[in-house]
């Protein structure tokens, strides 16, 4: 026993303390509780991993039987293997940094304690998700992180747009969760168990059609949580939450839960080629689609949000072409550089007094040098600059994609070029040129820049420090082995550098040109600028029909007439019958006596008739 339960229990304790007593506690105590609970959890993860003998086989710890009903038996079980170990390190490590950063970023906010309570609760559910040893317990974490995401997106609950965004995230995620729930039903029917080790041991012998159905349903859930087509729409809006939330939940950890679920269920996926192809196609389509939208956004957080959607698409592409470890590798490196991009963006926003529009920024490298340098590292990493973390993981995915289907490689590598372009566009618009905003921008405090520096180091060196495919080894049965093709690497690096160069040319050298290009493109630019009108399309095709249908049919029709009608009808009938019967209660003794006499007479007649009938029957 390694007492794995301590890992999520610490943030849960932090949540309870801050949630119950936080309102009365001084800010310092709130921050200490929140940060320490996560840092200690990180330390305990390190302790567990260093003391573990071998992580090749998952070490399952059974705490108690949770649900027992007939053949249905679910235990409260945690397990740790290599995949979980990597996720634990990412979640607690990045989580610790972001908690520290938040103490600076949120210092002047209302509801400081509330923010940290939610953040700790999120850590608890996320750790529960990656530690769980059966699907149902994963689902607990899955729903819990969704809840925390909702709470934190709507953190500024007095702002209508923030609560709307929270609702949107929650409702869109419901669609995905529906898929996961159905997948679990199907898994239980097929395997008579929800435990990972039983399911994965039995999976190879089951019909391909069943496994495909399970895999596709899991993909629906993963697409909801990890913001893939067609359910990605909630993630850009989720940027209404505080920036550390965007970094932790909507970039580094929660949105990668879908990738984790697919990698965890790799045994099911590899036995279903159709599902694998679907995953790869969804991932690739999302990567391209989101990258194109990212080209024309002006809100710095929106750019990074679409970038997150796009990079998650890469991870799904990796998983879909069978390179599970490459997908997980990109998950890790993406957690480094995307958390850094968001935290850096937060620092920029902090510097510009809450301004998020990049057209109101510019020239910040003088005012915020640390942010400038660290964001540069992240931007290099996401562009796949040689020997940065993003270079390794993206390359691994691209090589695997090429081995699967060359055209996928070309689409992905072109997307990589677009990624480099829009991230560096944001970088140049923010830090170069002249300051176009109001007030005096300033550098952020050490509590914010400290985590930035650590993450910058990880973004640069994280690729070869954590060689995930090597760590995971033979964990995934079928691993797409892309031949080490130097040519492919050169091509992807060339596309990345071209993107950076184009951004430099358009936004530093010749900064009048982008507007001309935009106006010459006309309708096409409008289309991209408005995100292909997907939100509007969903509004017309799904939201409005649902709302109107609910209003006219369900509310005015079924509720008003059928349900209320039944209730009112019962009442009205009781009243009517009572109205007739009340005339019997005249209070006049003789009328009662009359009724008694009539009743007696009727009874006698009936007895007489019945008696004769009875006697006749006997005879």
């Amino acid at each position, binding site marked *: 026993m390694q007492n794995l339960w301590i890992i999520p229990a610490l943030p849960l304790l932090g949540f309870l303390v801050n949630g119950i007593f936080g309102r009365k506690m001084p800010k310092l105590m709130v921050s200490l509780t929140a940060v320490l609970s996560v840092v200690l959890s990180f330390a305990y993860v390190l302790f567990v991993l260093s003391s573990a003998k071998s992580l090749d086989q998952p070490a399952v710890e059974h705490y108690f039987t949770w649900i027992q009903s007939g053949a249905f038996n679910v235990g409260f079980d945690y397990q740790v293997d290599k995949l979980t170990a990597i996720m634990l390190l990412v979640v607690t490590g990045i989580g610790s940094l972001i908690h520290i950063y938040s103490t600076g970023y949120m210092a002047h906010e209302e509801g400081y304690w509330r923010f940290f309570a939610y953040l700790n609760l999120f850590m608890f559910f996320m750790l529960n998700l990656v530690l769980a040893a059966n699907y149902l317990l994963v689902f607990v974490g899955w729903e819990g992180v969704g809840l925390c995401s909702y709470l934190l997106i709507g953190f500024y609950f007095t702002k209508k747009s923030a609560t709307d965004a929270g609702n949107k995230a929650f409702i869109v995620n419901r669609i995905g969760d529906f898929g996961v729930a159905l997948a679990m039903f199907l898994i239980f029917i097929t395997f008579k168990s929800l435990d990972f080790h039983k399911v994965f041991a039995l999976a190879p012998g089951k019909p391909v059609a069943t496994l495909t159905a399970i895999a596709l349903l899991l993909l629906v859930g993963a697409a909801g949580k990890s913001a893939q087509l067609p359910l990605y729409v909630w993630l850009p809006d989720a940027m209404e939450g505080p920036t550390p939330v965007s970094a932790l939940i909507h970039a580094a950890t929660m949105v990668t839960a879908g990738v984790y679920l697919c990698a965890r269920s790799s045994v099911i996926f590899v036995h279903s080629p159709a599902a694998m192809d679907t995953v790869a196609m969804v991932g690739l389509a999302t990567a391209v689609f989101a990258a194109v939208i990212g080209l024309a956004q002006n809100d710095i957080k929106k750019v990074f949000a679409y970038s997150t959607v796009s990079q998650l698409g890469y991870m799904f592409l990796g998983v879909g072409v069978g390179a599970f470890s490459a997908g997980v590798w990109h998950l890790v490196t993406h957690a480094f550089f995307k958390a850094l991009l968001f935290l850096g963006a937060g620092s920029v926003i902090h510097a510009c007094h809450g301004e998020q529009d990049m057209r109101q920024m510019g020239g910040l490298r003088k005012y915020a040098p640390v942010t400038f340098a660290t964001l540069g590292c992240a931007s290099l990493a996401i562009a796949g600059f040689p020997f940065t973390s993003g270079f390794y993981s993206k390359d691994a995915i691209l090589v695997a994609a090429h081995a699967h289907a060359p055209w996928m490689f070309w689409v992905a590598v072109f997307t990589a070029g677009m990624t480099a372009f829009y991230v560096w566009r944001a970088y140049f618009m923010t830090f170069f040129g002249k300051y176009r905003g109001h007030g005096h921008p300033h550098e952020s405090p050490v509590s914010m820049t400290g985590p930035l520096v650590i993450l910058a180091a990880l973004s640069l060196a994280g690729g070869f420090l954590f060689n995930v495919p090597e760590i995971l080894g033979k964990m995934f049965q079928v691993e797409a082995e892309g031949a080490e093709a130097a040519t492919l690497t050169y091509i992807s690096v060339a596309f990345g550098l071209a993107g950076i160069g184009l951004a430099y040319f358009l936004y530093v050298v010749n900064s009048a040109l982008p507007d001309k290009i935009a106006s010459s493109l006309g309708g096409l630019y409008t289309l991209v600028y408005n995100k292909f009108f997907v939100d509007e399309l969903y509004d017309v095709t799904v939201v409005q029909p649902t709302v109107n249908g609910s209003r006219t049919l369900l509310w005015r029709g079924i509720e008003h007439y059928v349900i209320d009608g039944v209730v009112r009808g019962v009442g009205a009938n009781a009243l009517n019958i009572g109205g007739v019967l009340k005339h019997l209660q005249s*209070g*006049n003794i*003789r009328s009662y006596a009359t009724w008694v*006499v009539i009743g007696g007479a009727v009874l006698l007649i009936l007895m007489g008739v019945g008696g004769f009938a009875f006697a006749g029957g006997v005879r």
Partner: protein
Amino acid sequence: MDLNALVHGVPVSWYLVLSAMLFAIGAAGFVLRRNIITVFMCIELMLNAVNLTFIAFSHELKSVHGHIFTFFVMVVAAAEAAVGLAIILTVFKNRSTLNIDEVSTLKN
């Protein structure tokens, strides 16, 4: 034909028919008449109709139970008559009427 033979010669159904007729008259009087004294007498009539039935069956079945019931009914009727007449007297003193429809203060 002595009395005993006469009594034995009357079938029990005659007593029952007589009893039913008495009861019907009593019930009709109770329902239809307004005079409180008449109503009171009608109640007595019904009680005695029932008594007659008891006696008839007691004789027919050679059982003493009917007699006992009859005595009970008579005791109750006597007590009722005492209380009832006292009430009637008081009502008449206070209201100067014997029409029961006019004595309906408790109804509302």
